[in-house]
């Protein structure tokens, strides 16, 4: 194993550059959010603000209520959505991975079709508003993201390649029911893939603003991303309205500060950034507690 500890300098450099490419813009955002009013106009973007100022964050705290509420909505939707989504996705994948499941081919095809062809926005909208009547409820934010065909196939592939059928057979010979097999044998063995798909789903729910845009009309149920999107778009539109409709520009409201937007972006990124280290633990754990050891 010793030779594995030597790192290849080329790979290291590539990864350092890659990480920097991700970190530098983030750093820039953080620094802008920490700089004083109009610093951008005065000095432009810089990696170290000439004058530190928490004015943007103070402003956010002063007007905290809508942000906190949208934060709450986002967290609630992400937690519930991810938990339910993992359950549904892995259960479907489990069924599809079983050789003895009668309509395996047909169901797989059905899932596959949803991956290849989308129904389009309008039917999607109509199903949730006219048939399920989910508009302006939290369900409208959760249900559309529950099941992704791509995730189903990833988990199915993991089940078929990494869990030997003999393990399921032996569990059932010992008298375990399907549910017991699924919850006590399969799930604990699948933590790596579940953690990965979980991360997909968390990021998906957390970053989703489009469902809010389409289904939510009351500002009480805006999630954080949509709240930010909205603040940004309102400011941009007001500016473009002044150009396009040739409105007397002076009569329009002053837009929020650039620094404020950056501060909001930082606040929105933090939770996802915090979730990652916790999930990382499971990647390792899932690999080491495998039931069938070599």
């Amino acid at each position: 194993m010793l030779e594995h500890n030597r790192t290849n300098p080329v790979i290291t450099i590539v990864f350092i550059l890659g990480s920097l490419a991700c970190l530098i813009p983030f750093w820039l955002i953080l620094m802008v959010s920490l700089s004083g009013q109009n610093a951008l106009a005065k000095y432009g973007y810089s990696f170290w603000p000439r004058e530190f100022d928490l004015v943007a964050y103070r402003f956010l705290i002063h007007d905290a209520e809508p942000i906190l509420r949208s934060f709450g909505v986002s967290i609630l939707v992400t937690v519930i959505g991810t938990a339910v989504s993992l359950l549904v996705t892995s259960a479907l994948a489990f069924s599809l991975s079983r050789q003895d499941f009668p309509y395996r081919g047909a169901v797989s095809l059905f899932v596959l079709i949803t991956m290849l062809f989308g129904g389009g926005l309008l039917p999607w909208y109509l199903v949730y508003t006219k048939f399920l009547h989910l508009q302006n409820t939290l369900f409208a934010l959760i249900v559309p993201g529950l099941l992704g065909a791509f995730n189903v196939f990833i988990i199915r592939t993991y089940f078929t390649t990494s869990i030997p059928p003999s393990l399921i057979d032996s569990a059932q010979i010992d008298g375990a029911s399907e549910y017991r097999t699924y919850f006590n044998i399969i799930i604990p063995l699948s933590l790596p893939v579940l953690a990965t798909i979980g991360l997909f789903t968390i990021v998906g729910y957390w970053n989703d603003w489009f469902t809010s845009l389409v289904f939510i009309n009351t500002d009480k149920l805006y999630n954080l991303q949509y709240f930010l999107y909205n603040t940004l778009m309102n400011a941009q539109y007001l500016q473009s309205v002044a150009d396009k409709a040739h409105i007397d520009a002076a009569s329009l409201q002053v837009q929020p500060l650039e620094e404020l937007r950056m501060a909001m972006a930082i606040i929105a990124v933090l939770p996802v950034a915090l979730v990652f280290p916790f999930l990382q633990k499971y990647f390792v754990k899932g690999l080491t507690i495998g039931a069938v050891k070599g």
Partner: protein
Amino acid sequence: MHSIRKGSMLASSLLLSFALLAAGCGNNGNNGSTGENAGQTNNQDANQPANDQAAGNNQAANANSGNAGAEKPLDPYEVVMIYPDGKQNDLAAVQTAMNDYLQKTYPQMNMTVKLNPIDWGAYTDKLNLMMSSGEKFDLLWTANWMNFETQVNKGALLPLDELVDQYGPDIKSVEGDLLDGAKRKGKLYGIHVHQELGNPQGIALRKDLVDKYHIDLAPLASGEFKDLEPILKTIKENEPSVTPAVGPAFPLGAYFGSGSMESIIGPVGLDQRDTNADNTYKVVDMYETPRYMELAKLTHDWYKAGYINKDATTPGVDIWKKIQAKTAFAAIGTDLEIVKDMAIGKPSHMDGKSAQLGMDIIQVPMNIDRLHTSKLSATLQAISQTSKDPARAMMLLDLFYKDAKLLTLFNYGVEGTHYALNNGQIDLPQGKTKDNVGFYHDNQWQLGNQMLNFTRLGEDPNKYQNYEQFNEMVKSQSSPIIGFVFDSEPVKNELIAVGKVQSTYDPGLQSGQLDPEKDLPKMIDKLKAAGLDKIISEAQKQIDEWRAANGK
């Protein structure tokens, strides 16, 4: 078995990198494409129900006019109004106040309103979905830069000619011929909001520096941007940390855009500077006009001399912030405020901007818009084909052109709660701010007859008189093709190709980075290859047909 573990390690690390990739870029791509697909799907799906329902609506309208004739009281009806706006906490209170007022003042109309604002960012998407899914609503705000043409083409809007004749006497008396700007294929689809009919554009300068260097603004009376050069030079030499001139988005775009061309579509239009009377209706390409070359050269020279901002190609440059931060001196080619007795080259104080920036700004108009067709559909109210009672919607719309009280409720909220009158101007109630008053928006330009409005404290109390005076000036020099609307359908593909060439060269030329002597001919060649000539001849054909039909 060792290999299995290694394999799954590889698999999960692959998965992980996938996850990160997806988190980083995947989402953006998806969102974008969903949006595009959405637009297309809507267009196709909407046609079918649109036609069916329009027929139904006409019957409803006829039935209603029958009722009115027989003096039978109208059934109660709720007019749903859709418009873009930010969040207003007290929306419900304002709506109730409007309804109380309607019931009290116009009981015979027996209608209520439901205010249904949509956030700016979601307006296009949501409105599209509401139209396509056949949701019931009545009045909607729209504009030619906000999908008006698409909405007309897919049949989402009702033709209004008969409705406005029957139920819109005040609209007709206020707007008159100006209504024609929203006619498409001979039918009226939108009611123009009565407002200023154009804008002055020109130069806005910092008063502190003008005073400091005793700058004489008289040479600007020529209305030519090149006469600004000595002034910029003074600033450049004496104030090294100040950019002498900044332009909104692109300097050249801004000052060529004002007063050089009668734009028809994209880069194609009538040359306003061509004094030969035979060429009044001759369609040309703006890049080939002498005026464009002249201004492009000027921009390039200014760029080289350091008179204009070098970061014009950076998106999101806010010229006013630069002026506020005292790193810039003049905004060139920007829209100006309408004041009393405007004239080219006549300096005046820019009240609104000065208050906003907290420093004194002087404006010098270099151009005053002619009356353009496009301006007349730049802010409209229309009636949805999903309306159950278009006649009632038109009655309500008509009220906004004559009833200042109703309009004030919509624009400023409830007196005492959301505003207080201070010498006949709108002021915030004691101890309230814009943020906590519960209802504060500047949507005057979205609805009705703006001239009926109050002004806000800090604005010129004579704002609307100035507007009227300004409108007379604009109307007196209306565009030769007023009323003409170009149908872009026959040259759709060419327009896209031409747009692509433009987006490659425009930023460089308009910011002054490219040398027009060298690059402009190259650009024109590429434009021709992209089908520019076809667009020109199509536009010429349509103009000629329009002239023949209208006797011009």
